[in-house]
């Protein structure tokens, strides 16, 4: 191995920012909840909305811009379950990524 190659290899950086983006993409695919004819990404905004609503049924716009009427509680349950489980895995892997920096 010549000196230039050694220098280049030493200067190789761990691509933390891309790693973060790839994790986001990876876990986005796991946050997809398909229920009651709609396609929803489980995120804190939708969960917060479903939690503060009191009606039995709510009308939402899904990932594909379809307007869907859903039963609030079953969707909230599955969204919360999915969100908590996926975010836990995401957090674990993010910590591993940070430690490699």
């Amino acid at each position, binding site marked *: 191995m010549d000196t230039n190659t050694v220098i280049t290899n030493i200067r190789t*950086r761990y691509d933390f920012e*891309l790693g973060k*983006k*790839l994790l986001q*993409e*990876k876990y*986005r695919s796991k946050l997809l909840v*398909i229920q009651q*004819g709609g*396609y929803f990404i489980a995120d804190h905004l939708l969960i917060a909305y479903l939690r503060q609503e009191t009606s039995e049924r709510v009308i939402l716009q899904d990932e594909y811009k379809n307007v869907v009427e859903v039963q609030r509680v079953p969707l909230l349950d599955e969204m919360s379950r999915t969100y908590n489980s996926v975010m836990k895995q995401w957090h674990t892997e993010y910590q591993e990524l940070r430690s490699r920096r």
Partner: protein
Amino acid sequence: MTQGAVIFAYNTDLYEYTRIATVAARRIQHYLDIPVTLVTDSDSVTDSDFDRVIIQDNEREQARFRGTELEQWRNFDRHLAWDLSPYDRTLLVDADFIVASDSLKSIMNSDLEFACHRSQMMITGEHFHRREVFGNHEIPTLWATVVAFDRSRFSETVFSRWKQIQEHYQYYAQLHRFISAPYRNDYALSMALHQASGQLGQESSSGSWIPWDLVTVWSDTDIVLDQGTYSMTYTRITNNLVRKFKLDLRDHDLHIANKTWLMNNLEALNV
């Protein structure tokens, strides 16, 4: 309702696509738990790795130089997936799409009539969430690497348009002003879906895309695969300087364009 994947693989002088497809099929069975049908013209493939092997003649090939090597491939019959698939719900995948997670299960278990990726990112970090257009009429590019479809009228229309566009590809290239060679299934599929959706763009056809990026690794990335973790090294220009980066990746579905690397790592990719 039956579910399964279909892979088209035709060997060339340089690459044994059927061997790549065999490993891809094992991974699909492992992670997505669905059977796989292979469409090929090779009679040397063993049935044991596949649900079915469909022999299909395919003589027409394309070629380009990659460095000094002449790379050939035969990709002219993907639109036949509609006719050849034995399943009610089909996942049509390229042999070089390496499944490493159960993410696509949600698409397969959904009631989406037709779904494919509409954005991709490259592992070098360029074009994150990139949604491309092509031709003078700026038709949104869709990716034919992974396509899920059912037996609906809409899917049938997309595939019949796909076939018609392939047969008259030169005409469409002139009409929309894009380069006609090599033939690209991505473009044919994009135009087919565009037409099937009433020429109103992807947004008009509710649920025709996979809601995350297709992650592609091009040949300019060095990959070392060790126990399911890909260690990737690549260069990128940042602040006018060429810099070398590295990244580790695991449990991530990847479209690996480097066929030489795939051929050399079939054992490591096996599950």
